């Protein structure tokens, strides 16, 4: 079986639902979404207007589900969506959309544009118009278990490093633990400090936790490329693992889309409610804070600012938690302009960071983050998403900036009162 236009169009017909019909019919073409999109503001090219990125989906909706559109199609007044058109739209639907959701937020008629991009990607992928980078990541995720090809031995190696550093044993496959901790491959490979930080914090909080040998990877390439069937396979792994270990709570790591995939899309993908709770690590840590389980000492002296990962703050509502936590350990915490739910994306969300041909555009779009950052005068940037972190690091390297980027969890762990 191979990808084909017919299959793609059929999937789009399947995807178009009542929300999409109402979104397309209520769009007033005001163009406000353009100003909300970093790819438009940084390039000034109107083709990056978010609603325009949905043109193929809109045409399928019109031709298949509206009376006038059907008559037009019958009379040959409107051409059906073609392979060439989808290929032309590929850079718009993938390279220049991080699914950050800023456009959805500003739409005056309440159109959830990201929701539609997500659905359009389903048709794009099945008709063979997904970027190579994302196909590769999805293939590795399904076949190897992680989009970056990380296998269990790599995780076990990190567990040994943590043990050597901190003296703490990392529990693996501990049945009946309260928390099951997931990681993103980026954390396993690039930011091993995350695992060590979790180990220290869990120890101080006195909580039982575990990693799972079959489900350590939290990210979900299926969501990014837009293939629900693959996304479901990946979510199911985590559900199976959590059920086997009988954990109460699954902790989504410092990663944006993993949280969206697991917490918001997951139950719909597997078709039933989870027998466990899903929380982002920041929600868990802030919970510990309110229960008085976190004891810290000392402060970060340098000026800190926080980059809100889009999927956390805008699509997930996690806003106060990182601020509560950072205020425990930061003397000089400053907010960026447009902070919180109106924060600008790092430019690499929604799978964009995995698309090689999108790099020049992504670096162009990074200018907005650069401006935001420079204005704060911050000496350290804290965030809560490994993908944001790597994308921002790359962007800063390109623009010759040198501000260290760290995660919330590790920053907090650095200040834990030892030995309690």
């Amino acid at each position, binding site marked *: 079986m191979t*990808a*084909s236009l017919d*299959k793609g169009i059929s999937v789009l*017909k399947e995807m178009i639902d009542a929300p999409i019909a109402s979104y397309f019919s209520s769009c007033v073409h005001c163009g406000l979404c353009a100003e909300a999109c970093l790819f438009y503001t940084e390039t000034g090219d109107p083709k990056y207007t978010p609603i325009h990125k949905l043109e193929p989906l809109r045409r399928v909706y019109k031709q298949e589900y509206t009376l006038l559109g059907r008559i037009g199609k019958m009379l040959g007044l409107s051409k059906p969506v073609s392979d060439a058109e989808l290929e032309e739209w590929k850079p718009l639907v993938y390279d220049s959309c991080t699914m950050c959701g800023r456009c959805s937020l500003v739409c005056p008629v309440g159109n959830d544009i990201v929701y539609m991009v997500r659905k359009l990607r389903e048709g794009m992928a099945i008709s063979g118009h997904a970027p190579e980078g994302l*196909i590769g990541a*999805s293939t590795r995720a*399904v076949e190897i278990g992680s989009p970056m090809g990380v296998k269990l031995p790599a995780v076990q190696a990190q567990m040994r490093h943590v043990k050597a550093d901190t003296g703490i044993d990392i529990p693996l496959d501990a049945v009946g633990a309260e928390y099951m901790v997931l990681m993103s491959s980026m954390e396993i490979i690039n930011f091993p400090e995350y695992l060590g930080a979790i180990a220290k914090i869990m120890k101080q909080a006195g909580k039982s936790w575990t990693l799972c040998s079959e489900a350590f990877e939290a990210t979900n390439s299926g969501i990014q490329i837009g293939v629900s069937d693959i996304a479901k396979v990946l979510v199911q792994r985590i559900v199976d693992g959590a059920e086997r270990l009988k954990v109460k709570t699954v902790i989504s790591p410092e990663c944006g889309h993993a949280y969206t995939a697991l917490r918001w899309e997951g139950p719909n993908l597997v078709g039933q409610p989870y027998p466990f709770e899903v929380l982002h690590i920041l929600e868990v840590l802030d919970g510990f804070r309110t229960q008085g389980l976190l004891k810290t000492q000392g402060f970060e002296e340098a000026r800190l600012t926080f980059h809100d990962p889009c999927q956390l703050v805008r699509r997930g509502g996690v806003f106060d938690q990182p601020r509560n936590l950072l205020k425990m350990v930061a003397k000089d915490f400053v907010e960026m302009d447009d902070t919180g739910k109106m924060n600008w994306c790092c430019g690499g969300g929604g799978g964009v960071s995995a698309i090689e041909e999108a790099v020049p555009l992504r670096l162009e779009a990074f200018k907005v983050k650069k401006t935001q950052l420079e204005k704060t005068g911050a000496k350290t940037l804290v965030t809560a998403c490994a993908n944001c972190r790597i994308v921002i690091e790359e962007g800063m390297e390109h623009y010759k900036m040198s501000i260290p980027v760290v995660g919330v969890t590790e920053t907090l762990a650095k200040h834990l009162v030892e030995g309690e």
Partner: protein
Amino acid sequence: MNDHDAPIHEKNSHEFPIHETLGDSLAQQGISRRAFLKFCTAMASLMALPPGTATAIAEALVKAKRPSVIWLSFQECTGCTESLTRSYSPTLENMIFNMISLDYHHTLQAASGYGAEKSREDAMKNFFGKYLLVVDGSIPMNNGGVYSTIAGRTNLDLLHEVAKGAAAIIAVGTCASFGGIPNAKPNPTGAVAVSDIIKDKPIINISGCPPIPAVITGVLAHYLTFGGLPELDDLGRPKSFYGETIHDRCYRRPFYDQGKFAKTFDDEGARNGWCLFELGCKGPVTHNACATTKWNGGTSFPIESGHGCLGCSEPHFWDAGSFYSALSMPASPLKYVAGAAVAGAAAGVAVSIGNRIKKGTAKSAHQKATIEDLEK
């Protein structure tokens, strides 16, 4: 009839400086700039102008020469003036009198007799072509207009004379705008509106029985700021205030949409605050700002007090049947509408079923996607 040559009050009250700017006048009255800006912002929002206009209004108003205003009261009840002088909102109506130089107004002026008429004539002479004429009340036409006279002259005569030099005419109240109650059947005096008589001047109708005070303030502020009249609807009323119906903006509208109606004034529906449509509310056909601007310093408006709208800002409201019978629906067009609605609904259902089948077919044709499906 009149003896205007009588040498009484030869150099009378017009010694006071009517050319002063509004800024000077406000400063003299001890009105702070802050209070003034607040007023300008309120005006801008009332007139649905962009927020930035408030500053423009402020700048224009401060510099504006207070225009001379002549106010003529014809066949009326003085309710319009009562409305204007009884406002609790942030001294809006005080400000009117600071914004303009009110040179002639029966009810409010201190002078009487020849002195009063002279003051009008002076203003007409000194500001010919520049003064604003405000009219409240209708003009009787039957029998040469004898039914209403002032200083022995008919309203018709006076209107023609004063209108000649007016920059614009503001018809305040439903009587001046559309004839109002004097015009109600059988209309013994032959009462007509200002616009029925004067054809060569810009006329703005501020209808209502009485009209909302803020509306006239708004129109004056607009005139002073932009030097012209605001955009008007087909009945000559400012769109910013009369653009929508009472019904459109009524807080009881959700009950109308749900079909919840009070049937009498003391039934459960009335106590629950349901829609007063069946009790004769004329809100759906009445264009005015009562539901948003409200009355008595924003306290309430008639529907909020439990009574339907009378439709007082619309022409012939007095002759539109009982205030307490529900708005009637035209019979035969309704049948077509009903027929069309049924046909439309059927087509809608058919299209919807078709769409559902199409989506269903696409769904059942769904083959589970694997990674092999992604490569072309």
